[in-house]
C-alpha cells in the first residue's frame, strides 16, 4: 500500500519473515512458476512475433484506422482522467478523512462499477442517457444534448468504469495520513486550504498518482461499456480496443496487431511506473 510511515515505525514482521524462511525453494515451486510465466509470456511474444513476421506492424502504424483510434483513445482517456480527478478527489477526501452516516453505503456504491460487467455498465448507461433512456429525451429536448454515439459517450463509459480505481487509491492515501500532521500545521497558523495544499495533498500524492495511473490504464483498455453505449464509429467513438476488434473481424490482423503492440508497451510502462511510484513513496518515508 501507499503509506507514509513514521520513521520510528520499524517492521519487525518483515524481519521475522525473512529470518524464518530459509533453505532453497523446491523444484516444484520453480516448475509451477515457470508454467505460469510461460502462459503469460507466450501470447505477448506471439503478438510481436506475428507483428514483426508477416505483417510488419511498423508499416501499419501510419494506417488511418490506427492513427485515428490512437488519437481518439488519447483524447478520451485524457478527458476521463481529468473528470475523474476533479470529481474523485473531493469524494476520496470526504471518505478518507471524515465519518458520516451512510459512509459504508456511499463507499460500496462507488466501488460498484468496478465489479459490474462492462457490458452491463454500457446497457445501464444506455438506459439512463440513451435516446429512449430515462434522462435521454430530457437531455435532447431541453438542452439539445445527444449523448449516445459521441465522443462524450466514450468519456462517460470510461469514467463510469474506471473512476472507482482512482477514488479507492486516493481515499486510502488520505486515510493513511496521521491526523497529527494536519493538527500541527493548524497550530502553526496554516489556514485549512493551506494545510490541504502544503501537507495533506503532498502526503497523499503518491496514492493519487498511482490511482490516476490505474484509472487511465483501465480507461485505455475499456471496450464493453464503450461499444454498448457509444457504439463503434471510426473517428468518432472507435478507440483502440474497438479498432482492434473491428480490424480483426474485418480480416485485417495487421492493424489490430499494431494497435495491440502499442497497448502492450503502454501497459508495461504503466505497470513499471506504478511500481516505481509505490516504491519511491515508501522509500522516502522509511
Amino acid at each position, binding site marked *: 500500500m501507499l503509506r*507514509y510511515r*513514521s*520513521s*520510528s515505525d520499524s517492521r519487525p514482521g518483515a524481519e521475522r519473515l525473512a529470518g524464518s524462511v530459509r533453505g532453497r525453494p523446491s523444484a516444484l515451486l520453480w516448475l509451477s512458476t515457470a508454467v505460469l510465466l510461460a502462459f503469460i509470456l507466450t501470447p505477448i511474444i506471439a503478438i510481436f512475433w506475428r507483428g514483426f513476421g508477416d505483417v510488419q506492424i511498423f508499416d501499419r502504424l501510419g494506417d488511418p484506422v490506427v492513427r485515428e483510434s490512437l488519437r481518439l483513445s488519447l483524447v478520451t482517456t485524457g478527458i476521463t482522467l481529468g473528470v475523474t480527478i476533479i470529481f474523485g478527489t473531493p469524494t476520496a477526501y470526504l471518505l478518507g478523512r471524515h465519518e458520516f452516516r451512510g459512509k459504508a453505503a456511499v463507499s460500496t456504491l462507488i466501488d460498484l462499477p468496478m465489479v459490474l460487467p462492462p457490458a452491463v455498465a454500457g446497457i445501464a448507461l444506455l438506459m439512463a442517457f440513451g435516446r429512449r433512456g430515462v434522462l435521454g429525451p430530457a437531455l435532447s429536448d431541453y438542452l439539445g444534448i445527444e449523448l449516445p454515439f459521441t465522443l462524450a459517450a466514450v468519456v462517460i463509459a470510461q469514467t463510469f468504469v474506471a473512476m472507482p480505481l482512482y477514488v479507492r487509491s486516493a481515499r486510502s492515501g488520505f486515510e493513511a495520513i496521521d491526523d*497529527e*500532521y494536519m*493538527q*500541527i*500545521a*493548524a*497550530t*502553526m*497558523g*496554516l*489556514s485549512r486550504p*493551506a494545510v490541504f495544499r*502544503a*501537507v495533506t495533498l*503532498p*502526503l497523499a*500524492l503518491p496514492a493519487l498518482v498511482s490511482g490516476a495511473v490505474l484509472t487511465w490504464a483501465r480507461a485505455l483498455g475499456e471496450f464493453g461499456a464503450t461499444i454498448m453505449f457509444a457504439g463503434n464509429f471510426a473517428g468518432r467513438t472507435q478507440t483502440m480496443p474497438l479498432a482492434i476488434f473491428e480490424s480483426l473481424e474485418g480480416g485485417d490482423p495487421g492493424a489490430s496487431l499494431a494497435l495491440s503492440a502499442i497497448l502492450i508497451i503502454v501497459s508495461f510502462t504503466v505497470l513499471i511506473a506504478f511500481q516505481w511510484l509505490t516504491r519511491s513513496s515508501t*522509500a*522516502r*518515508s*522509511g
Partner: protein
Amino acid sequence: MLELDLGLRLPSIAIDVRLDVDDEILVLFGPSGAGKTLTIKMIAGLERPSRGRAVINGTVVFDADERIDRPPQQRNTGYVPQRSGVFPHLTAAENIALPLARGRQRLTRGTAHEQALALLERFGLGQRAGAYPAQMSGGELQRVALARVMALQPDVLLVDEPFAALDGPVRAGLRREFREFQRELGVPAIFITHDIEEAAVVGDRIAIMVAGQIRQVGRTREILDAPVDREVAMLAQSGNLFDGTVAERGGETVIETPVGPLRVPQCRLAPGSAATAVIRPEGIRVMREDRSVERFANATLLDAVIQDIADHGSLTSVTSTVGAGRITVTLSPTAASNLGLERGKRIRLAIPPAWVHVIPGEPGEGLARGRYDGGR
C-alpha cells in the same frame, strides 16, 4: 503566563484541570491514559473542552460561558506531538520554512528559508538542512521539531513526551537543550512525561495527573518528599512505602509497620488509625551494626541484612530486609565502600523522624500495592 481551568467529559475519561503556569517548565506527569495529551490538545485548540476557560498570555482563547473558542490557527501555541510531527515529505529546512512562509508571519520564501537555515545551524543541524525525515535519527528529528517551534515564537510551549523514543545519552542532551530553549523563549511550557526521572530533570514544577485529575502540583522536591497520597507516592517513586497503624509508645507517636515501629514527626493522627509512611532512600543513614548511635538520638534504629547492592554511578542503592519488610537506601559510593557493604552483611539503619512523611488513610485503592523497587 498561562491560566487554565478546563473540563472535558468523554465516555472514556473525565478531565478537570486547574493550573497556572508562569514562564517556567511545568511537567505534566502521570500514567498513560491519565488525560495528559488531551489536556494540552485542549490548550492548542485541537480538542474542544466541555467547560471552563483558558487564557494564554492575557488572551482568552477559550471560554465556555462567553462562547469563545479560538481555532488552533489563532492561539499561537508551540505544539510538539509525541512523534515529533516533522512532515515526512519536506526536508529539515522546508519543515521550518513552511510555517514561516504560510503561517502567521507570512515571510517571503527567501527570508523563510534563510531563517530556517539559521535555526538549524543553532540546533547543530546545519549539515542536515537538505535531509528528509526518513534519513534522520530520532534525536535529529526532535531537534528539527524544536527548531520549528522556536521559529514560530509561540506564546506557550506544549510538548508531548518528546524524548520517549530516544536512547539515554541523546535524551540527556536534549533535556538540557530543552531547558535552555525554554529559558530563551521565555514562555510557559507544559512538558508531558511518564518518566519521573525526566520529570525531575526537566521540570521547574511537576503536576501529577491521575485519571483526568491533577492530584498534586509542586516543586520536584515537594512531590518527592511530601506526596499527598499513596498513589502519588508510588507514581513519583517517592521512596520506601510502609503501610501501618498509628500507635502510642512511651508518650511518642509511632507507626507500626512490617519493618517495626517508626518514629514520626509531630502527628495529629489518632492511635489506631491507618497510615502510610514514606521514607526517601537518601534520608536513611547506614551504619555498621556495632556502631554507637548517639548522633541519631531520636531516630528509629533498625537492624537489617543486605539483600542486594546496585551501583548507579554517582549513587549506590542498597536493598536490605528488616523484619517482614524491605528498605532501600541510597548513599554515595565512597560511603558504601568505607562501610564495606556486601550482600548478606548485617547493618544498622537510622531513620530520622524528619525524613518520614506520613500519609493518613487506608492504603490501596487505584494502584496495585507494591514495594519501592530500588533506586533511581
